[in-house]
Each structure stands twice: as C-alpha cells, then as structure tokens.
C-alpha cells in the first residue's frame, strides 16, 4: 500500500535502467539508456525534439503499453523490481507512478470528481472531502477553486487545469510523479507557479520531468539527463543519453561537446 512506499527503509534509487532499448515495431526509438533516478529529487530530461525523452519517461509507468507495436530490450528496475516482468500488472504500476501530461487533460467532470476519480477506483474509504482538499492544497490550487468544486474541471484556465491534473495525480498517493512537458501549453506566470509547486512536492515525491525549456531544467531540477538523436543510414532517428549529471555540473561544466553546444546555444 501507499504507506509502505513512504517507509524510510526503502532504497534511495527509485528507478534504475540497464541497457534499455525502446522499439516501435522494428524501429529502435531510443538506445542504451543507463540511468539511476534518486528518491525525493527532481530529475530533468532535456534534448532536441525527437530524441526520445518523453518515450523513456512513459516507460516508467508503462503508459507505452497502450501503443501496440511498442516493446523494450533491457531492464527497468523500480526499487529493484523488474517493471516489465510478465507478472507485473501495469495498472498497479500506474497507480504508484503518477503522470502529468503535456496538455492539461482534466476529465469533463466537476473539479471535485476529477480529484475523487482515482481514490474511488481504489476503493478509498476515508474522508473524501478532506482528501480532495489536501490534494488541491498540495497542488497550490485550493484557493482558486475552493468555492467552485462543483464547476467543471474543463472550465478552468490552462494553468489551473494543469495544477488540477497534478492534484488529481497526488490524490492517489503515488511515490513518483512523471511530468511530460507540463508547462509547454502554459503562459510564463503559470509556468513559474508549477515550478514552485515542484519544489514543494519533492519533499514527498520523486519527480521526473521532461522539458524542452533549458531554463526550467536549470532552475528546477537536481539532476539532468541530456538526450540527443542520431540518424542512421536509412534516415531513422534513434535517441540516446549523452550525459547525465547533477544539474549545475551539466549546465556549467559539461563533459561532452554536444551538451556544451546545446546548453549554451539555447542560452546564447
């Protein structure tokens, strides 16, 4: 249960990937991913578009299973368990590893029902009103919506919708929150709010965020992985990790020339 997840005896390495290759059919989308993701840290994935950073992120909660041709080689460990072992239930995985998407995607239901959706699925028996309030508070949107919990989630502004989606993810008490470019559809003010929120959340959760915004990665994250993409002779593009370091190291003294160019080019 969720309470076990929070126990202090567990490992600090939440995810470890070993020689992870990701395929769509015959097409190798990402190769040779070997990274550890640490507990209660914010890990950022950056890189040019098409480098497979979102694809890797979606492997961590098996959301790629919804794509028929998808399969992997190599292993992803979640606290030492092979996430893709045949006896693992992807539905259970997604419960413990939450996700916030690029486009805010509230259900066409009330704000209250959006939050209560996940807990209800899991047969939550406690005080739902309290859980809804706590989740909304943690996502820093309680003040905005406390008087209109019966309004439709889809009627909120884009930034509010995204914080609602974060609150919805928190409500099922996951250990990890995966964020797939959560601010790309938002204005700068909403973006800053979400970044502040991430700093709050990392006390309780492990966060992995994909972003194409360099400043966001350097501001908000503890460790950063830089992805790049190579094109083979047939014109197929395969992504790989160039460098994975603590964020200040990666931005200030990168080992690889490609990282240097990418990081400075954007800041230029």
């Amino acid at each position: 249960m969720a309470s076990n997840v929070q126990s202090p005896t567990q490992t600090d390495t939440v995810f470890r990937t070993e020689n992870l290759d990701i395929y769509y059919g015959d097409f190798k989308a990402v190769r040779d991913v070997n990274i550890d993701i640490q507990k209660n840290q914010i890990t950022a994935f950056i890189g040019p578009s098409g480098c497979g950073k979102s694809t890797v992120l979606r492997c961590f909660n098996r959301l790629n299973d919804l794509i028929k041709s998808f399969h992997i080689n190599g292993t992803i460990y979640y606290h030492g368990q092979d996430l893709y072992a045949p006896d693992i239930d992807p539905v259970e995985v997604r419960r413990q590893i939450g996700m916030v998407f690029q486009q805010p995607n509230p259900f066409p239901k009330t704000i209250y029902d959006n939050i209560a959706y996940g807990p209800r699925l899991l047969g939550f028996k406690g005080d739902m009103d309290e859980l809804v309030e706590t989740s909304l508070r943690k996502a820093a949107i309680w003040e905005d919506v406390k008087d209109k919990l019966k309004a439709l989630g889809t009627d909120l502004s884009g930034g509010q919708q995204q914080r609602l989606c974060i609150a919805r993810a928190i409500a099922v008490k996951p250990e990890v929150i995966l964020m797939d470019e959560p601010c790309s559809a938002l204005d700068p003010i909403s973006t800053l709010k979400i970044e502040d929120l991430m700093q709050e959340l990392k006390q309780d959760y492990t966060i992995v965020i994909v972003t194409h915004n360099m400043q966001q990665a350097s501001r908000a994250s503890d460790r950063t992985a830089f992805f790049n993409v190579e094109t083979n002779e047939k014109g197929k593009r395969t992504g790989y990790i160039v460098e994975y370091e603590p964020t200040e190291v990666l931005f200030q003294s990168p080992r690889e020339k490609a990282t240097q160019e990418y990081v400075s080019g954007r800041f230029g």
Partner: protein
Amino acid sequence: MTISDAAGHVGLSLKKNPSSPRTLFSSAMSVVATLCAVLAVIPLVAVLYYIIVRGLQYLNLDLFRQLPPPPLGEIGGFGNAFVGTLLTVGIASLISIPFGILTAIFLAEFAKDTDAPEENWIDFAVNILAGVPSIVMGTFAWATVVLLTGTFSAVAGGIALSVLMLPTIVRTATEALEAVPGSYRQASVGLGASKIDTVMKIVLPAAVPAITTGVMLAVARAVGETAPILFTALFSQFWNRTVWEPTATLSALVYNFAQVPYPNQQNLAWAAAFVLVVLVLFLNILARFITRKRG
C-alpha cells in the same frame, strides 16, 4: 545494499492478481463486448445466406424480360418491376439530386458567410425530415400527387422517394463542400472570380467524389424502400407505357408475392429479393469505394 534487497524491504505490490475483482470485471466485460459484436453479425449473415440460397436458384436472365405470373404455373419474371424501380428511383433522383446539392451550396457557401439564423433552421429541417417515417412520405405524395392527378403513378412514387433521398443528399453534400479547403476559395476569389464561378468551377468539382458517395447511398436506400411506394406507384402486372399509370417495383413485388400461398409467385419474390439485395449492397460498397480511393 543491492537493489533486490531493497525490493524485499519495500514489498511493493505491483504483481498481477488475476482474481482481484477489478481484473475479473475487466476481463468479463471484454468478453461481453466481443459477444455483442458477434451477435450483431449473425443476423446479417443469416439474412444474406437465406436470400442467396433461396433467391439464387431461380435467377436467370428471362426473369428480367417477362411479366409477373398469375397464381400457379410458370415463375414468369419481374421485367416490368425492374424497369419500374429504375423509373421511380430515376424520377426521384432527377428531383432530389439538384434540390439537395443546391440546398447544400446555400448551407455551405452562403449561409455560413452571413452567419444567418436561417442556416440553423434549414439544418434543423433537414434533420427532422430525415426522421420522418417513410410511410408518412408516402401519404404526403398520395395527398399531393395521386389525389391531384387521379391516378397512382411512377411520378407519385418518385416524388415520395425524392423526399426520402433529400436529407441524405443535403447532409453529405454539405459536409463534402465544407471539407473543401478555404484556401481554394480564397485563391479563386483573389483572382477576381465571382462567387458563382468559384463555387461551380472550383469548390463543387473538388467535392464531387464525396457528393457522389452520398447520392449513391441515397439511391441505394430508395431502391430498397417499399413503404412510400405502396400507395403512390402501387403495383402493376404489365409493362409501363407512360409514367402516369400504376407502376410495379421490385420491392413492392417482394412484399406482395411473399405473402401469397402460390409457390411460383413466392419463388419470384425470392429471386426479386436477391436482385434487390445485390443492387443495394453493390451501391453501398461502390459508394464507400469511391470515398476511400479519394482519401
């Protein structure tokens, strides 16, 4: 500390549990949905199988040349009914195709520009017309044409069927016109073309394949309809001399002869039903083929 040790400590329950109510429910529902689809295909297969088995054995070219038989005796033919179907559906098409396409042009090209409320009303009328029972369309054509001309006729039947076809044609043609990219219109208008030139020379030709699909679906439906024909075209044992006399159709022949106790007429009904189904399915498949090829 190794990772597997840690897993032991944490004891996360990520394992599948096939007997959990959630999993069981999910599996059961998947089976139910599959069964529904199978259940739906059964009647289609059963109808087609029966029509083919009963209809095909009597089928020959003579059926298309001869007249319906009297009770008992030879099987005769449905030549006049086949011609009658072409005649009534032809008349219906002559009315409903121009009517439908012009309405669609108004809806897609003019009413949208002016943002006028009439578009909504016409739209609404089209949807309601699509829901009017076909037999009521028959009573309308009877009251309007048969009563006025004093005779059941192919024209009355054609008018009843044209009302039936109209909503389908308006809808598909409007969709087809709206699907033509706005850049085509701008390019044409930018060259100084008038509205009528733009619509007739640019937009309409681009929409022709999709409109054709809609027209064929409407024709297919009209070919198979019986209710609006029953008391407009009525039926006839003879060849038509004019369009102003009672006219036999394939669908009315199936209805009339399927209910009689005489084997020769029943058999003719089966053969006619077979021809009817082949005609309707052929039109449907062709209609879809046109759209798919375009896409």
